[in-house]
């Protein structure tokens, strides 16, 4: 496996090998699936949306709907306005969504299609909406695409005149429905009236009932997106995914925000809980959840202590997992993301410094080829990341835990949380399980223990 990857680190300026990111539009599509009765729409050639739908379906094992402007060579020369107009009419006629969320592609961005103007001039039925976000594939990554689409909804819909109330809003970040359910659980236990936006629960984990529904029960209602403008406060989780939309909401509707790391592990979940409690009491049952997690962390400590690990994936997820690994007494050696942006590096290095770890390589805009080369030179005990890590894990025979996005080769992950105290317990089970299974596999017969 990956036999052609040399151990000697290669200096590369141009060639990306085995990427650890993908393009903006797929993130925009995923964000749009978190709005109720929304049809995501890709303004580009139909190949883009075909790949994106395929990719999301493979991760979630759920239908991921989206339409395309289906550019041909003519549209690429003369502009995609006519294609978008035809698409919007056809989508409302045939699929009848309440809202269409258009995102751009490298194709439509390169030719300079002006989506603002197209949408302004378009015939849109009275009770229907069309919004858009600019997501050129040559900027950022799928995570920025997600952030841009969330911000796009806010630009179009959040209502500055919405009545101010006591409601809070939570931007969950680029996470699975299982994570969003966990966040909702915490918020509900704390008795908060909240808007979760976007919210893919019910859409990307729709139950099997024997009937296909194009717009299942789920997704943030459009009225709630409007009502964001009246929220008392926004808790934006994950800097890469949620900071931009929170800023946009602040600028447009003067809703103050707190940007928090994705609540992965103890400290980050504590921070989320305390921020949301806003000085009020934290309910006892949440404290008990936390207590059970701490109990588990102490129980499992001998098996994870000082274990070296490499973590890769999206910036917010990777930062969260790094922090939690440190809390577990583990030793992160390599932490990389493919998404460009040095802010991730600084934040992660701060977390590491807090635990006195100075020998961990942290990189943004990296790729899995580079990670593999580094791991070849400095072996680790555990690899954590998306499905594509399985190649490195097999090549170097490293125990491997799948966490993050995309996971294309396993089932049930999207239902399960990574965030919150209970999500952290699941992470512990995965990490310790992988390491202990490896011990059992490799140890001498006389060392195989019934009790560990």
């Amino acid at each position, binding site marked *: 496996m990956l036999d052609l990857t040399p151990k000697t680190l*290669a200096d590369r300026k141009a060639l990306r090998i085995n*990427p650890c990111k993908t393009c903006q539009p797929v993130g925009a599509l995923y964000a749009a699936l978190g709005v109720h009765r929304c049809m995501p729409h890709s303004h580009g050639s*139909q*190949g883009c949306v075909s790949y994106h739908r395929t990719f999301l379906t493979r991760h979630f094992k759920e*239908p991921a*709907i989206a339409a395309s402007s289906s550019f041909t060579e003519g549209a690429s020369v003369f502009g995609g306005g006519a294609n978008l107009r035809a698409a919007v009419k056809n989508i409302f006629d045939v699929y009848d969504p309440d809202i269409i969320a258009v995102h751009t592609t490298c194709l439509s961005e390169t030719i300079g299609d002006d989506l603002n103007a197209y949408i302004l001039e378009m015939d849109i039925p009275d009770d229907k909406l069309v919004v858009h976000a600019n997501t050129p594939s040559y900027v950022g990554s799928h995570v920025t695409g997600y952030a841009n689409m969330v911000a796009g909804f806010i630009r179009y819909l959040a209502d500055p005149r919405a009545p101010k109330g006591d409601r809070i809003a939570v931007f969950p970040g680029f996470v699975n429905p299982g994570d969003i359910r966990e966040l909702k659980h915490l918020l509900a236990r704390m008795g908060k009236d909240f808007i979760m936006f976007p919210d893919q629960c019910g859409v990307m984990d*729709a139950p099997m009932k024997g009937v296909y529904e194009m717009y299942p029960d789920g997704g943030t209602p459009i009225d709630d997106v409007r009502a964001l403008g009246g929220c008392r406060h926004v808790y934006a989780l994950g800097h890469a995914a949620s900071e931009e939309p929170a800023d946009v909401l602040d600028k447009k509707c003067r809703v103050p925000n707190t940007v928090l790391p994705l609540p992965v592990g103890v400290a980050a979940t504590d921070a989320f809980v305390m921020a949301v409690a806003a000085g009020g009491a934290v309910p006892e049952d949440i404290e008990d959840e936390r207590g059970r997690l701490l109990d588990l962390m102490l129980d499992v400590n001998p098996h994870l202590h000082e274990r070296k690990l490499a973590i890769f994936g999206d910036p917010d997820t990777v930062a969260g997992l790094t922090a939690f690994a440190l809390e577990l007494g583990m030793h992160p050696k390599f932490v990389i993301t493919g998404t460009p942006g040095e802010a991730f590096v600084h934040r992660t290095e701060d977390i590491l410094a807090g635990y006195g770890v100075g020998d961990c390589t942290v990189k943004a805009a990296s790729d899995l080829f580079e990670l593999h080369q580094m791991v070849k030179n400095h072996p680790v005990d555990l690899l954590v990341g998306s499905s*594509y890590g399985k190649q490195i894990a097999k090549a170097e025979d490293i125990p491997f835990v799948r966490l993050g996005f995309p996971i294309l080769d396993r089932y049930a992950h999207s239902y399960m949380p990574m965030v919150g105290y209970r999500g952290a317990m699941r992470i512990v089970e995965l990490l310790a399980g992988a390491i202990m299974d490896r011990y059992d596999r490799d140890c001498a017969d006389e060392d195989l223990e019934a009790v560990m």
Partner: protein
Amino acid sequence: MDVKTEILGKYNAKVFKSRRDHILQVEAGEDGKVQEIAANTRAIPGIMTNRGCCYAGCKGVVVGPIRDAVTITHGPIGCGFYSWGTRRNKARAGEDGKNFIQYCFSTDMQESDIVFGGDKKLRQAIKEAVDIFHPKAIFICSTCPVGLIGDDIHAVAAEAEKTYGILCQAFSCEGYKGVSQSGGHHIANNGLMKRVIGSSDQAPAGKHSLNLLGEYNIGGDGWEVERLLAAIGYEVVSVFTGNGSVADIARSHKADLNLVQCHRSINYVAEMMKAAYGTSWLKVNFIGIESVCQSLRDIAAFFDDPEIARRTEEVIAAELADVAPEMERLKERLSGKTAALFVGGSRSHHYQFLLRDLGVTTVLAGYEFAHRDDYEGREVIPDIKEDADSKNIETLEIVQDPKRYRVFLSPERYEELRRTMELERYSGMIRDMPDGSYVVDDLNHFETEMFAKALKPDIFFSGIKDKYVLQKGGTLSRQLHSYDYSGPYAGFRGAVIFGRDLVMGCYAPAWSMVIPPWKAAPSSNQQPPDEKGRNEGTAGGPSDA
């Protein structure tokens, strides 16, 4: 109201006009005349098609599986990423140890590359690929913005070829070209024909040699077919392109016969090799027991060698003896079921034979990106009107290679064989479909739902994008692009694996539990799953009848 009328009735005038001629119900015509269907036309904006793009057809389908070349996607990161390790075109390194299938190479273009041009970055990327991997060939596949900003990838390739002394071929397969993946197949075929095929004259070692065209080794299909061909005594010179190699494709013109499995994606190479080198091609189908037997016998007839004929019958007999008992058992479980097939550009035809072997009737079939000849047979090609989109894809002018041109069959034998087998002809899918069944080109999301409701097929073979749409609606859906991570499905053994997968899907215990007992009708409430694995009264699940 029939389902076609019902579907078209829901469309606005423009969509109605665009879709009307892409849907037909099969009626046996007089004198074997086949109904005409519209195909290979533009997708309709906003209508959720399953189609991909030109890049997907070129890089994803044809060029990508070649194992010993570094294929660099020139563009932003997405396209290269999505086509990395997701198609199940299996490959093993050859003697040179080169297998790049596990790798994704991209120039990961950034905004500055779009503004100032990406050729500098491409040049540097090639240099890095050469320095790190020392490949003997580099392919470059371009994505949408590359064509728009006018990067001259062909000049970069020519320059790299001089600098590094290796084959470097660029494919201008921008996603917006053509109307589907199909344009990309053609561009890939042209590139291979121009630069790779005929570039080595190393002769086959065996007496009877052939190439396997349009076989992408999904789930290991190509290996299973090669096993059969080797057992009979053929030398497979090259495979286009599953587990294929530049080294083998370079000398493919030395083979005596081209076997064409996927007609749509590779018929251009077959025709061009015929014109340039005189190589005959034969349409084969290695999917389905009867079809494999027929194809093997056709190949033997082509070579007209008693030893080969004897070996062919021996291999068929031995393979049949191996699989017949289990095929019989599988057929018992599946007989009477109905199927819909919607795949790319040949499988919807091929799998009808295998389904027939298992007692399953096809009620609907169609292609994502086929042309009229895939439906109606190649004889309609002269009647297909060129439109602006197809004109944008280059058609190569092929001249006969004076040194290498050779004809295997005598003119008399050629004419004789053309009457009995699909030698340099293809009769298309519609002829093999039952009366009353439906043929739909570029079936879309809405039509999938409507047809599933109207025809209630027990099994819907399609791709990942609509798999869960169908499953949620209670229809078993099996991916026929990726075989749902199973396979091989080709050959005799593959037929058994396919049959087992269908039985597994049809009789999954979960189907019978979809409706909670507190909502089920009282009569079926307490009933355990019957022998066939499902309760009456459940919504969903393939029906037994």
